[in-house]
């Protein structure tokens, strides 16, 4: 429970910590009283520690779904200027580099899915590698591995895992520039050898969902969403490669710290100057990790299309959008009237460009960026849209998920995997997973109220609600 004594309420949905004790900028938290009360004290400690890092610009932000992370809180955002001694921090990106959500629209309805729901669940579970130890259809090594890390989703499409038009709906066109596969360790590449096109475990999933609520008819139509329409949501990241890059560089930054002259307020907030050999090496390797995640979600898209083609001849699955919520990206932002190049860390936070942003696909540009927010297995997900106000509110960023309300251990004591599966089935949701213990740890009751988080995101001017998606089939890693 957060002790809010050091916070100043500056709006109905916004709280501020004035700089003190070495803070170089204020910290701003977006929440209502309930969400703030539910936040761990560690969120406040970590977000104020982030403001003590050199070269921070503006403020550090905590999103409505923020919770205790590694150095940065999950749901934490901070931007740094390389020209002002700014840093890059592994904790500001996380271990699962470019973990994110991709949403596919379909030309099918809820009724179409319900007619073959069990067959679809079985076929997806058989085709989508999920859980620890699962291996993908794509085995990569040597030049092929380098090409994937360099090309991201563009590589996967060239390999036959998608269509060229998919790429227009992925951040950075499906491939982030500046990747340095040569700076990714051999161990990381060995971990990835058989993991491309796998879902992973934990909170990762592939869900067939239905659009059950529409909040903004105009934007929903522009995004290609309508009530009763079936969609597919894929939540996963950069698999073993990303995890190992995180491990390798967290260690390097922690060990290097005494030599850089800057001692972070917390060892876990290890960082390196953006303009240093280590900082640049991490950026290059991390970008290769982003491309790995984009390729991974593209391969999973291809596998999903195969399953739908077999069960629903004529089914058309289009990429609505693909967002990454664990990244550090070089972006242009307007600060006090002047455009500057900043390195924006989003740890468990989604980029949310507002209407008119030049990086948005032409047909979506005037509606704002789709912000895909994953929820628990029972509560469903949200499609939000970046707002005009997102830029000033948080460097164009919004929430990324529900956030846990209960630890894994507590969830395991509280829930039985089999019971969770039966309860969801009683609500028309078919859940398939290799692990009943994993299901218990991810029980819907272990998560916060996503409706409230989406509502607060909208009221705070971060991202506006467009539609809610209810699950019908869930493949859990």
């Amino acid at each position, binding site marked *: 429970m957060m002790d809010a004594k050091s916070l100043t309420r500056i709006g109905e949905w916004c709280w501020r910590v004035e700089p003190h004790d070495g803070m170089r900028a204020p910290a701003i938290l977006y929440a209502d009283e309930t969400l703030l009360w539910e936040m761990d004290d560690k969120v406040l400690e970590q977000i104020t520690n982030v403001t003590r890092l050199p070269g921070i610009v503006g403020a550090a932000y905590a999103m409505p779904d923020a919770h205790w992370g590694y150095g940065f809180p999950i749901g934490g955002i901070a931007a740094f200027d390389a020209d002002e001694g700014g840093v890059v921090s592994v904790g500001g990106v996380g271990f699962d580099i470019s973990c994110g959500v991709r949403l596919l629209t379909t030309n099918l309805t809820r009724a179409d899915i319900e007619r073959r729901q069990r067959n679809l669940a079985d076929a997806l579970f058989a085709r989508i590698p999920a859980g620890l130890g699962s291996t993908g259809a794509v085995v990569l090594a040597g030049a092929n591995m380098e090409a994937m890390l360099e090309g991201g989703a563009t590589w996967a499409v060239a390999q036959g895992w998608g269509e060229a038009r998919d790429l227009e709906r992925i951040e950075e066109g499906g491939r982030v520039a500046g990747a340095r596969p040569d700076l990714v360790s051999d161990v990381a590449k060995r971990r990835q050898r058989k993991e491309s096109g796998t879902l992973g475990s934990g909170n990762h999933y592939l869900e067939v969902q239905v659009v059950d609520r529409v909040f903004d008819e105009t934007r929903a139509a522009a995004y290609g969403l309508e009530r009763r329409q079936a969609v597919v949501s894929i939540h996963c990241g950069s698999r073993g490669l990303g995890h190992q890059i995180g491990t390798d560089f967290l260690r390097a930054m922690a060990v290097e710290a005494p030599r850089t002259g800057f001692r972070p307020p917390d060892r876990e907030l290890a960082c390196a100057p953006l303009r240093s050999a280590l900082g640049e090496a991490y950026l290059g390797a991390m970008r290769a990790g982003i491309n790995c995640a984009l390729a991974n979600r593209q391969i999973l898209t291809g596998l999903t299309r195969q399953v739908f083609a077999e069960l629903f001849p004529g089914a058309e699955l289009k990429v609505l959008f693909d967002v990454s919520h664990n990244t550090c990206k070089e972006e242009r932002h307007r600060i006090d009237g002047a455009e500057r190049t900043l390195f924006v860390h989003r740890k468990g936070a989604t980029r949310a460009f507002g209407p008119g942003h030049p990086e948005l696909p032409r047909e979506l540009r005037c509606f704002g960026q789709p912000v895909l927010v994953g929820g628990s297995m029972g509560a469903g997900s949200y499609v939000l849209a970046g707002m005009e106000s997102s830029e000033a509110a948080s460097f164009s960023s919004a929430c990324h998920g529900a956030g846990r309300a209960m630890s894994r251990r507590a969830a395991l004591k509280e829930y039985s995997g089999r019971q969770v599966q039966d309860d969801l089935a009683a609500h028309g949701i078919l859940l398939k997973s290799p*692990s009943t213990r994993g299901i218990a740890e991810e029980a819907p009751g272990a998560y916060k109220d996503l409706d409230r988080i989406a509502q607060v995101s909208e009221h705070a001017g971060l991202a506006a609600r467009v539609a809610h998606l209810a699950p019908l089939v869930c493949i859990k890693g």
Partner: protein
Amino acid sequence: MSAAWETFPHGADIGVRGEGVDLAEAFANAALALTSVITEPTGVRAYREVALACHAPDLEILLFDWLNAVITAMAVEGLIFGRYDVRIDDDRLTARAFGEPVDMLRHAPAVEVKGATLTELEVARHDGRWVAQCVVDV
């Protein structure tokens, strides 16, 4: 702590803690706690052996390296370990991890561990016994 190892809560993830009469035992037990995040350690048959080694500038980084070496070996070899023999000489650790290939049905792995972190990282002596702990990202 009733057993020589346990897990402890962290917001989205989980902490692992090992205790022992010496550092080596505490590190081995921390690795058992790591296994328990994935599956029940007593259910793992120990017929495959992997040698691991690491060295680090301090004991905390040594624990971070050790747990990450175990995580990487499991990921790369497709194994799960149920027993660890650890030896520590100053800043160097050598170990043998015993286990078997992951069996999805029998082990029913709950979760994949992405990496050990610096969060709640501590190697210290309390009341004459060594404790080694950190949060692992899952």
